[in-house]
């Protein structure tokens, strides 16, 4: 008798894990609050830039349905606004392998349909505590992977790993067609990271959406600052108009290529904010059962480093590996803690790095970003850190290590 696993949530982590378990012979039931068509016809959920290590986990499961459709990007561009609003610094690092952003409306809808087609049980239902309370005993293991739902409240906040109690950025996302290229980048397709000190960040990346290739304009505004103006805007046209107005004002070099943009569709905008948080992985239920949290249910970082869907993919891969390794033994709370521990062994790095990036850059990081303009090697290393942020801890995150690394590169170049 194969083991029965219930997964709540139809996002990157829940669906990826469901497919993985199904391929290994587990009986998988996945509960989604929305149907595939509702996901596809709904609002955008993320910017979901995924780098090679995360994409590889999808390839491993045969879930890279849109890899050939593109668009891919091969580099990370960095632009710094000077005090007078001009472009003070601009460079691009090259990724060792391409990255891609497939609109989660396309991806999750497709994965959900594929799961059912491959033999998984899909139940369309917005899960409540009552449901979980009565369902846990019917499954060997129940996993909550719905990071945006109300069930996250089951998992207590872990203050020792959650330095912020309030949102650190106000988010605004617009999906557009018709964005031109950045001429400085030549043939290198990039995600562009524009830093406006004291104001916030603007990220621009190519993506694949329901209406084909597009670009995503993603503002991270410091709360109550000049970019924090999207709350309460209801019309997508107004959202785009305001985005362009702010681009013209704060990142004119990006605005220069935005004269012909139009919204991809009525659901192509998103605004919001949330406090980064790490939660306890075991969610206790009223009648004594327990559920295991995964991905952004337990580690929700600010999107400033674009790690959300990468962490979700890596979390799903780690959970799959641990569940398989556990064999026939019971999935008790000790097991849940252990599985999360394996994820946290990795996730602590992107979490610490992401939380640091929310602060004004300290002098050694300013120095690194400046040096990258003159040394391609540094720019490339920075770019590839987004694929595996653990590398930042060997240089970027530590003043002493950063200094010795810069010395080794600059010294060698002289």
């Amino acid at each position, binding site marked *: 008798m194969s083991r029965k696993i219930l997964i709540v949530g139809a996002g990157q982590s829940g669906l990826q894990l469901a497919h993985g378990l199904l391929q290994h012979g587990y009986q998988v039931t996945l509960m989604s*609050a*929305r*149907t595939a068509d*509702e996901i596809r016809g709904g609002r955008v959920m993320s910017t979901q830039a995924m780098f090679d290590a995360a994409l590889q986990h999808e390839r491993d499961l045969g879930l890279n349905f849109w890899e050939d459709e593109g668009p891919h990007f091969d580099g990370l561009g960095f632009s710094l606004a000077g005090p007078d609003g001009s472009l003070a610094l601009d460079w691009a690092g090259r990724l060792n392998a391409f990255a891609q952003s497939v609109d989660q409306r396309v991806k999750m809808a497709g994965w959900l349909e594929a799961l059912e087609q491959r033999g998984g049980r899909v139940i*369309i*239902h*917005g899960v*409540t*505590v*009552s*449901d979980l*309370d009565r369902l846990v005993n019917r499954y060997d293991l129940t996993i909550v992977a719905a990071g945006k*739902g*109300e*069930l996250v*409240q*089951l998992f*207590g*906040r872990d*203050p020792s790993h*959650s330095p912020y*109690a309030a949102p650190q950025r106000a988010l605004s996302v617009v999906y557009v067609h018709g964005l031109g290229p950045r001429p400085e980048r030549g043939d290198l397709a990039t995600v562009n990271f524009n830093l406006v000190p004291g104001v916030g960040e603007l990220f621009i990346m190519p993506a694949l959406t329901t209406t084909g290739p597009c670009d995503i304009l993603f503002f991270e505004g410091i709360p109550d600052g000049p970019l924090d103006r999207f709350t309460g805007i209801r*019309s*997508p*046209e107004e959202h785009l108009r305001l985005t362009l107005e702010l681009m013209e004002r704060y990142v004119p070099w990006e605005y220069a290529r935005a004269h012909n943009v139009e*919204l991809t*569709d*009525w659901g192509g905008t998103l605004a919001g904010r949330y*406090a980064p*948080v790490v939660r306890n992985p075991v969610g*206790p*239920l*009223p009648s004594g059962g327990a559920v295991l949290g995964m991905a952004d249910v337990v580690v929700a970082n600010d999107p400033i480093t674009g790690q959300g869907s990468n962490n979700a993919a890596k979390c799903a891969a780690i959970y799959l590996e641990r569940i398989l390794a556990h064999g026939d033994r019971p999935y008790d709370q000790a097991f849940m803690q252990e599985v999360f521990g394996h994820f946290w062994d990795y996730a602590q790095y992107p979490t610490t790095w992401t939380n640091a990036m929310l602060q004004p850059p300290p002098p050694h990081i300013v120095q690194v970003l400046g040096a990258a303009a003159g040394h391609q090697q540094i720019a490339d290393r920075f770019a590839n850190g987004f694929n595996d942020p653990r590398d930042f801890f060997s240089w970027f995150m530590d003043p002493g290590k950063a200094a010795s690394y810069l010395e080794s590169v600059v010294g060698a170049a002289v």
Partner: protein
Amino acid sequence: MVSRPSSTELSPTAISTKIVIAGGFGAGKTTFVRSISEIEPVTTEALMTEASQDFDDLAATPEKITTTVAMDFGRVSLDQELALYLFGTPGQDRFWFLWDDLIRGALGAVVLADPRRLADCFPAVEYFENVPEAPFIVALNCFDGILPFELDDVRAALAIGPEVPLLTCDARDTASAVYTLTELVRYAMNFAGPPALV
């Protein structure tokens, strides 16, 4: 409650459809459902987590962080082969995913409003304006038959378009409730559906 002899037993080949009765707390949703339903309105309940304002409340137990959300509904057999269900939305309108479940597959929705507390139905109106597939009408539940405002003023206050039907009703009165549903169905017949791009 409507008495409809021999209609409560549905045929083994019956199909079903539904209409959602939305509105703020105390707008008369259950009364409306009761005045049409051939069964005494029934309730299904669910336990939800209660969003904690206190981030550091590690002592919170599931018992302490949960709240019960109830949903009332009724049924009317339109013919032997077709059952119409009427679902009232839960009072707490922050559980939007429950609304999504209610509206999925619905013919449309009636937003009931208490004219004395018009603002209570704003979240419902806003919700349906963001679900372009579902036609909705607004019915002012006038308990005493007196509307203290002009309908045009109400339309302006609710910020609904000129195409959305706005009428008065008495939720306790079967004829009035039937008329309200009839208006929704007539509107649905001419409903253009969502534009490709708003």
